[in-house]
């Protein structure tokens, strides 16, 4: 598990920390929140049933703004309900988003969030990632920006890593090797150290 310096898109050095590797897929944690950070696919999560005039905060709010309010609009128009594991792929995002597509994953009800939900959400995200054949993913559920309290996010990172790993480990025999090489957890700057600590507590693959 090494710390490595990598270049952020704005030219600012960022520290990316490798926490696990399985079947050739490197799992890392990045502290940088910027939605235009480089990865082929950007994955974020949305909870179900936001109040009508709820506005997303932080990085999720900035992503919503970059998409001209699409995240908020899809929920309001009931085109994306945020049910746990539900997915919606937004293709050809504006040039301000470096990823070639943005995948929304439903996080379910805010009140139902727990380790089991976290694992299921990450598993959905990993399944879709493998299906799309992308090489790099920035997995940025931005749970607190979506409305979760800091206490409720505890244990989430480890459960998410376990959920994503399980999908890789249980691929059918004879399945072609995954195109995926890099899975970046982007929990948000203030939760970076917590997430790294949590993930480093796991046994190495």
């Amino acid at each position, binding site marked *: 598990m090494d710390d490595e310096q990598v270049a952020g898109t704005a030219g600012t050095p960022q520290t990316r920390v490798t926490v696990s590797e399985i079947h050739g897929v490197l799992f890392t944690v990045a502290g940088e929140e910027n939605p235009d950070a480089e990865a082929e696919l950007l994955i974020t999560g949305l909870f179900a049933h936001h109040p009508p005039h709820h506005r997303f905060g932080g990085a999720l709010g900035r992503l919503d703004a970059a998409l001209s309010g699409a995240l908020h609009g899809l929920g309001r*128009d009931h085109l994306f309900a945020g049910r746990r594991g539900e997915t919606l792929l937004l293709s*050809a995002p504006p040039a301000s988003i470096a990823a070639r597509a943005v995948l929304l994953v439903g996080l379910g009800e805010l009140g139902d969030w727990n380790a089991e939900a976290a694992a299921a959400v990450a598993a959905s995200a990993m399944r879709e990632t493998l299906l799309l054949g992308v090489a790099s993913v920035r997995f940025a559920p931005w749970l607190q920006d979506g409305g979760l309290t800091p206490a409720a996010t505890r244990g989430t990172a480890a459960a998410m890593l376990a959920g994503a790993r399980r999908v890789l480990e249980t691929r059918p025999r004879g399945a072609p090797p995954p195109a995926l090489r890099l899975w970046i957890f982007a929990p948000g700057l203030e939760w970076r150290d917590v997430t790294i600590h949590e993930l480093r507590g796991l046994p190495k693959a």
Partner: protein
Amino acid sequence: MPSDTGQSIRIAVVDDHPLLREGVQAVIDGQADMTLVGEAGTGIEAIALYRETRPDILLIDLQMPDLDGVSAIARIREEFPAARIIVLTTYSGDARALQALRAGASGYLLKSSLRRELLDAVRSVHSGGKHLNAEVASEIALHMEDQRLTPRERDVIELVAQGNSNKQIAARLSLSEDTIKGHMKAIFAKLGALDRTHAVMLAARRGIIEI
């Protein structure tokens, strides 16, 4: 890209332009996990094709002879509620997209999309997800606070687009000219239009009417 299961995604394509169908076929032919099982050129043919082939994914245009794409989607979904349908269209307007998605489409792609987007959409929707072009999603968001035109207001703006005066529209709809003026005022306010031409242009761009 071969699938994990080794099973092929069976696809049918409906568009009144043979060149478009050939283009889609060329894209699909290069994919180990996809097979084209049929094609059609009209909305009515789309329904028959679906009954006959039961594809995993139906790719369908919106503007077609004899039955438009939204009506065809609604009828297919009524008969086959689990049908997975992706719209492939030139229209990026919010109104048209919302109609198609509410009729039961799971994906909405523009014909200007890259080959990769089409393949992503097919794989995502086949696995049970939804797919939207980001520009279309933004258009939907941009107008989500807008008041929608009523069916009568849509009739009126369609007749305006055909070059009719208020008097002629009143006669066509068996209403008074004052009532038509009232509808026009409401249409201007809802669309944010400055005059009749602007209203027609905005309604067409958003896919509220076809011209």
